[in-house]
């Protein structure tokens, strides 16, 4: 990246860092959610945008992190920050368990298997009532100030974006792309595709686990239905595709634009909100399959690391 890009980036970061002192708590809450979506869409990008293996159950890692955080806070008395970070461990463990067999599946079969994973995890959590509170979920003490969560979520979003940059500028990143482009050719050229897919999958599970943990603390209450909705996965996917899969800034752009869009439409047209969101999904898939940055990249020959 050029010095100018770094300069602008640092300015934006500095502005975001001091923002909570100057804006209403409504704006701070909105930004927390947006950070969360940046982290989620960016994580989905790491497996699906790079390798082409579409994960339809990515919210499972978010939910696993949320329950890990909530249980550590409520049962083990952990402070929220380490409890949230610990969500990465369980999410990564789940990714390892499920990724090893499922990443052998091709195309739609992987997508469906991931969808199934999400349902299984949710069902298990509902089943072990004594431990997880079953359908009624877990309540945590209300949080007194949201600023710490703001910074924690913000750092998660920045970390995912930096991680994506590091990956895409490395041979590892190129190799993930080669799996998306032609897995058989990649394999025949000496690339251990099974292992690289698993690495990407693990990395893609870490931050959803973390922001899931933070989210549990932020929301003060979690229950299975609200924590594992398919809509969350779909939103990650749409954000990433809209901004541009396989790019650094695509998920950021998509998450910010769609969060703003949702907020505006949600506030004004509560009833048509779902329909508009659905229409947007169709429009993105039909008109902008490569996403905003994908199109710009191709038209203006932008470097890969945008």
């Amino acid at each position: 990246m050029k010095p100018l890009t770094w300069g602008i980036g640092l300015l934006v970061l500095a502005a975001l860092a001091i923002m909570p002192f100057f804006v209403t708590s409504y704006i701070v809450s909105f930004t927390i959610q947006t950070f969360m979506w940046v982290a989620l869409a960016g994580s989905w990008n790491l497996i699906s945008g790079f390798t082409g293996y579409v994960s339809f159950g990515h919210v499972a890692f978010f939910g696993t992190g949320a329950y890990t955080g909530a249980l550590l806070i409520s049962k083990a008395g952990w402070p929220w920050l380490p409890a949230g970070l610990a969500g990465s461990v369980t999410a990564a463990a789940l990714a390892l368990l499920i990724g090893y067999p499922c990443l052998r599946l091709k195309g739609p079969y992987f997508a469906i298997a991931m969808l199934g994973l999400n349902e299984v995890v949710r069902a298990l959590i509902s089943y072990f009532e004594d431990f997880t509170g079953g359908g009624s979920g877990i309540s945590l003490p209300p949080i007194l100030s949201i600023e710490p969560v703001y910074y924690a979520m913000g750092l998660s979003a920045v970390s995912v974006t930096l991680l994506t940059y590091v990956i895409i500028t490395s041979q590892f990143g190129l190799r993930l792309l080669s799996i998306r482009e032609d897995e058989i050719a990649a394999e025949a050229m000496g690339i251990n595709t099974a292992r690289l897919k698993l690495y990407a999958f693990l990395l893609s599970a870490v931050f959803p686990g973390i922001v899931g943990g933070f989210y549990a603390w932020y929301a003060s209450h979690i229950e299975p239905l609200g924590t594992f909705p398919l809509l969350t996965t779909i939103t990650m996917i749409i954000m990433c595709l809209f901004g541009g899969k396989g790019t650094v800034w695509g998920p950021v752009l998509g998450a910010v634009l769609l969060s703003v869009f949702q907020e505006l439409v949600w506030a004004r047209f509560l009833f048509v909100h779902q329909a508009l969101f659905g229409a947007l999904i169709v429009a993105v898939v039909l008109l902008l399959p490569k996403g905003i940055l994908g199109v710009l990249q191709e038209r203006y020959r932008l470097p890969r690391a945008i």
Partner: protein
Amino acid sequence: MRDSLILEVKDLTKRFGGVTAISRCSLALEPRRIYGLIGPNGSGKTTLFNLITGLEHRDEGEVRFKGERIDGLKPHQIALRGIGRTFQIIRIFPELTALENLLVVARSTGGAARRRALELLAFVKLDRLKGEYAGNLSYGQQKLLEFTRVLILDPELILLDEPAAGVNRTLLNDLLEAIRGLKEQGKTVVIVEHDMKVVMGLSEKLFVLDYGEKIAEGPPEAIQNDERVVEAYFGR
């Protein structure tokens, strides 16, 4: 004897449902030679390459590379041991640039790998297109790119599945020169090619497949006059 062979295929058989694509096929390749593999359409040439490189799993028989069994290894393991290949139907990475297509498979990532990649691109006259998405290159250029992508792995044995098809005349001569050059560098090449003039001119020894069986082997002059070969090609 055995150790002096670079590749040894023994009684290899591969069936697809009712079709026996490769039938008790045996070959022995010595290092530093150029071999031709010919046979009518559907005679099993591509399948044989797929079996050697691990993309298909054999039903019977064995494959040895430098004396060691490689049937049963994963394709990437076989590639890293030193067997490179191209595909009859091009398999480049279309949304990677020409240069990235080479860097992505290079064994190291330093300046040396980059220099080597640029050198290879220059060699097939693609250096000026290094930043172009491979999918935007012409058919012939994509074939040449795929050829250089094999070379960056520096394999000892190179399997070329119809490398000349669709490559224009001027580049074709460079390509043939390059293939001869590989032998000078100590490599072994097996080339599948439909253009008899090309394959006869290039190969020191030919193997002929028909319905998955090896029906003849020998120097080009002998093959041209072999009755079974003539019949396989023209007799039906």
